[in-house]
């Protein structure tokens, strides 16, 4: 036990002192913050820039549309004779026009510009032309447009789910699916990240040839377990730091955006967080992250032990990535029906449960026994895979010179030690 502790300490301390760890830990929350706030911020900047009025030339034989198009704060329509269009087209940058609308007939309208027209301008133009044409069509069919407008229903939908205690919570499907997807995706990334950290550690020891020195002092199983737990603690540390830093970043961002009226998003987040059992989600996340990591990292360690260098890894890693990728690619179907048969079984099956269960949980429809079953199976599975892996590992780390095949790996399980 002392020796496992020594190994854990080394695996942990070497990794958390690495520059790459420190940089990743600091930069990731900033990147996430940027991902969340940058679109809103950029949008507010670009809408400021869009304030200048754009001149749009209209070319039309009969002036049906031209009369009806309304200038707005940002668009100024000018009718232009057809003869001038060639001139403008050839010399867009020097002309005062931003775009030309060529109305060939009732069905064909060309919008010509040198640069990509920004979306809000385009929306306005298309919307106006569409409305004008629609109005004309209704008139021709003798439909009273005013009556029609007054008949269109004015409804608002309110989504409410009832929790076990009978209380009502505001339920927003879109927000929940985003949360689901984020959780599932994070588990996927974490399993990969820390699993391959274990694998690289094994390959390093094997290709450095230090493993024989260590194996003459400790059992291979102790080395394997020490490494897996050490890296798990690295992951845990990183995760906690990320959460703390994210809270800091979010607070700073909130202060920065409060004037720009961008806090709608934050309000949304905090509202949705309140509508969901956040402590359950958080605990489940930690558990499924750890469970999934423990299950997969012993596979990753096996692969590290089976190859001679990192370039051989690709081919062997495929089988263990398939269930992970499959879980992620099934995400859409699972979000469509979070309590369906597919979602249920995938959240019980240990190789996919960490991702799929995390995706199901935000919707709140998972029964207690399902969670307990899924957790139990996950724990039993990782105990089993760690045992299998340690048997492959103890042989693999001392095999040099060739890449083992899967057939050989299975044989190694039965070798006497």
């Amino acid at each position, binding site marked *: 036990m002392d020796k496992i502790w020594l190994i854990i300490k080394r695996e942990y301390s070497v990794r958390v002192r690495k520059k790459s760890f420190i940089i990743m830990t600091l930069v990731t929350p900033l990147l996430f913050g940027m991902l969340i706030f940058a679109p809103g911020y950029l949008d507010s900047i670009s809408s400021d820039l869009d304030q200048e009025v754009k001149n749009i030339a209209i070319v039309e034989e009969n002036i049906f549309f031209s009369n009806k198009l309304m200038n707005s704060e940002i668009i100024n329509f000018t009718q232009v004779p057809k003869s001038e269009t060639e001139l403008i087209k050839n010399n867009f940058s020097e002309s005062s026009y931003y775009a030309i609308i060529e109305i060939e007939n009732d069905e064909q309208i060309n919008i010509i510009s040198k640069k990509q027209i920004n979306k809000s301008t385009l929306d306005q133009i298309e919307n106006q032309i569409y409305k004008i044409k629609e109005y004309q069509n209704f008139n021709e069919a003798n439909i009273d447009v005013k009556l029609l407008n007054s008949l269109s229903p004015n409804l608002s939908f309110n989504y409410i789910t009832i929790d076990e205690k009978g209380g009502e919570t505001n339920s927003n499907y879109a927000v929940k699916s985003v949360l689901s997807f984020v959780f599932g995706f994070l588990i996927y990334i974490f399993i990969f990240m820390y699993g391959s950290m274990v694998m690289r550690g094994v390959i390093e020891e094997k290709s*450095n*040839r230090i493993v024989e*020195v*260590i*194996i*003459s002092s400790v059992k291979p199983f102790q080395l394997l377990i020490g490494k897996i737990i050490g890296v798990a603690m690295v992951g845990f540390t990183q995760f906690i730091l990320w959460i703390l830093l994210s809270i800091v970043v979010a607070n700073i961002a909130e202060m920065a955006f409060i004037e720009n009226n961008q806090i709608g998003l934050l309000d949304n987040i905090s509202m949705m967080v309140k509508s969901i059992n956040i402590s359950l989600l958080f605990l489940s996340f930690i558990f499924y992250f750890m469970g999934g990591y423990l299950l997969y990292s012993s596979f990753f360690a096996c692969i590290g032990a089976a190859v001679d260098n990192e370039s051989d890894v690709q081919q062997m890693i495929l089988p263990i990535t398939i269930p992970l990728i499959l879980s992620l690619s099934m995400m859409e179907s699972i979000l469509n029906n979070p309590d369906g048969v597919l979602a249920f079984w995938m959240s019980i099956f240990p190789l996919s449960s960490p991702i799929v269960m995390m995706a199901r949980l935000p919707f709140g429809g998972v029964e207690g026994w399902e969670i307990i079953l899924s957790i139990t199976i996950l724990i039993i599975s990782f105990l089993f895979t760690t045992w299998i892996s340690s048997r492959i590992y103890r042989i693999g780390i*001392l095999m040099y010179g060739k890449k083992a095949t899967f057939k050989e790996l299975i044989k190694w399980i039965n070798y006497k030690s």
Partner: protein
Amino acid sequence: MESDNILTARNIIKQYEDHLALNDVSISIPKGCIYGLLGPNGAGKSTLMKIINQITAPDSGEIFLGGEKLQKKHISKIGYLPEERGLYKKMKVGEQSLYLAQLKGMSKYEANKKLKYWFEKLNIHEWWNKKVEELSKGMAQKVQFAVTVIHKPDLLIFDEPFSGFDPVNTSLIRNEILELKKSGTSIIFSTHRMESVEEVCDEITLINNGKSILQGNINYIKNKYRNNSFEIECTNENLKLERFDILDKNKNRYLVKIPEKSSSKELIKQILKSSEIVSFKEKIPSMEDIFINTVQNG
């Protein structure tokens, strides 16, 4: 009987998938001696060393360390320097040595004290805070040597300890090995360099194709392999001899075999008839000759 030996291995058999690595090998290593484990590449030496270190287990056979059946707890009594040895490249030398020493069961305080002593002795103390990747191969080898002997094991196992060392450091390490022997440590020593075997080993086992084919005290073996041939240097370049075979000749130097019914006295008499003798000495086979001979004939 067994307690006079630090290590006894009886009838060790180890079968790998496609070949028999050790075929019924038995060795007894007396306390306080340097025991040479010789043999061509792939003969099974490293497998035997791995078995003694409990890195791998034999299919059958028994091993005793100091009279007790070999068990996991004996790990701290054995120091092993494998042939393929390495260190963590990104770790600092001192930190890493402390880690490896602690894995052998030493306390941090004790490990620190002993490491400082050995680092001074091997003249590597100023590398304590350097990363291993900054060291040359020879420097790293010295660190590995220090880490191997640090816990004062009863039995040390060196697999090709001199590979990668320049002559100065080779002699430094050789002297350390001899000093360890003086202080009572038993040593198993595997190498291809036959001259170092003659210099340091007391007893040897020669393994070929997984079998032990020659075993015993080194002087006894060398005696056994004497074939009664003599190296002669004389003034005559065309020496003619009756009843004696000239095995080899190079100008005025001859290698002559004396038949059983004759003696060196008679040989000298004959030579003196046609020449003066500059030197006359029995050819004692070197370990290299014995090695090559035995392996080829075996």
